[in-house]
């Protein structure tokens, strides 16, 4: 069995593995949360709760898929499809290993940013078409949050791009063979991490779906598989952000040769997934205005200064 970039087998495997990982994360996250909060978590179905995801899926697939009569049907139906497709499309440019990937693109980083910005439509349309005040409030919050944090996410990556001199994610990984970018780009890494959490609107930045304030936010009216798609897409976003951090700042598949490259990639990506779950267990949710002013008044200047200093150092070190 030969895996090479862009062959149908590789593409199918990547799609399958990524979706199954995202679905399994639902159980893994609940078990990890239970562990960190000193309780059991779901442990009844299967070996230590490993089949909980199957039970969840059966429930979600057999539930009535209800569209509210007052909803705008067209937008209501396509909203969950948009987020699933843009997140899955983003995986096309992720270099999992030297021979595993969908496309070797010269605009890889920009492609991911474009897909992230299109993802905003999903939450906005979901909330707007539901015709429900909680959903509308949730999607207003989501829209402002996603547009704002996209900016810092883009600027924080530019340091890495400037150091490599390319938008190609494979070249970014190869350029890190002398040392991971986490060391020269530590500030960029921290900003990217924060913006990534905000982009995938997970705790502590899950303000668009804050249960205590606005029910479930933009997906209040969704049920059955459409809700399932929003739910799985959130975990897919988590996998995507973890893979991106691995690729941009932690050398992607690079590592000592006693393990194959794909294993190194998976270990690093899973470490970040676990870190995001730990953040969910440990950090309280900020207020909405705190989130916005923190972004624009703190993250934006810091990321611009980081880019400026990086550019100055690159220029001065050139002969």
């Amino acid at each position: 069995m030969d895996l090479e970039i862009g062959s149908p087998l590789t593409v199918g495997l990547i799609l399958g593995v990524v979706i199954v990982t995202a679905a399994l994360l639902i159980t893994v996250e609940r078990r990890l949360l239970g562990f960190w909060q000193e309780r059991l978590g779901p442990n009844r179905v299967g070996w230590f709760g490993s089949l909980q995801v199957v039970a969840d899926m059966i429930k979600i697939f057999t539930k009535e898929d209800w569209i509210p009569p007052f909803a705008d049907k067209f937008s209501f139906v396509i909203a969950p499809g948009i987020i699933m497709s843009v997140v899955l499309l983003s995986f096309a440019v992720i270099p999992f290993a030297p021979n595993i990937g969908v496309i070797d693109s010269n605009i890889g980083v920009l492609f991911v940013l474009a897909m992230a910005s299109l993802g905003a439509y999903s939450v906005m349309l979901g909330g707007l078409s539901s015709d429900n005040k909680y959903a509308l409030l949730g999607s207003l919050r989501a829209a402002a949050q996603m547009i704002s944090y996209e900016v810092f996410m883009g600027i924080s990556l530019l340091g890495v791009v400037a150091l490599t001199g390319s938008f190609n994610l494979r070249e970014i990984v190869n350029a890190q063979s002398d040392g991971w970018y986490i060391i020269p780009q530590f500030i960029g890494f921290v900003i990217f991490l924060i913006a990534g959490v905000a982009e995938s609107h997970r705790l502590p930045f899950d303000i668009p779906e804050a249960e205590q304030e606005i029910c479930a936010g933009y997906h209040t009216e969704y049920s059955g598989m459409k809700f399932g798609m929003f739910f799985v897409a959130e975990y897919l976003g988590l996998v995507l952000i973890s893979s991106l951090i691995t690729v941009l700042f932690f050398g992607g598949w690079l590592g000592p040769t006693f393990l194959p490259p794909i294993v190194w990639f998976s270990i690093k990506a899973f470490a970040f997934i676990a870190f995001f779950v730990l953040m969910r267990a440990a950090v309280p949710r900020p207020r909405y205005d705190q989130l916005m002013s923190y972004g624009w008044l703190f993250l934006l200047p810091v990321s611009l200064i980081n880019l400026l200093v990086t550019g100055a150092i690159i220029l001065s070190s050139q002969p």
Partner: protein
Amino acid sequence: MIALFYIAGAVAVISTIAVIMQTNIVHALLYMVVSLLAVAVIFYVLGAPFAAVLEAIVYAGAIMVLFLFVIMMLNLGQHTRNEEKSWLTPKGWLGPSILSGVLLAQLVNVMSHLSYEIVPEQIGVMEVSALLFGPYVLAVELASILLLAGLVSAYHLAKPK
């Protein structure tokens, strides 16, 4: 590749017509996004991947999101839909159709004298940036001054009293 160009072009034209015909403003906006993405595909096929992805990020991803944001705030309902319907009368179509028909005829006439050969040469980010900060640096600076003016006026409007 040339087939992709024609498919994307057809999608762009059809979705732009749908933008005008739609009375539901949210649906019209979605067609607008589809049209912009189709234009991005056209750029990509013609060998400008950087322009294509910028079209997706800036137009489809940022400007149209802001449009949708404003529409959400305005809370337009059945009333605006009826208003839109009352504007789309056959009489209203007549004048614009004649004028744009004349323009289209001229455009087709001019285009028919051109050669159709497309050189599938990929222009990378480096080449575009070298042009932007070389011969076109004045235009870039002027555009940034315009953006600065917009920023200052936005700050003035939002300034706490």
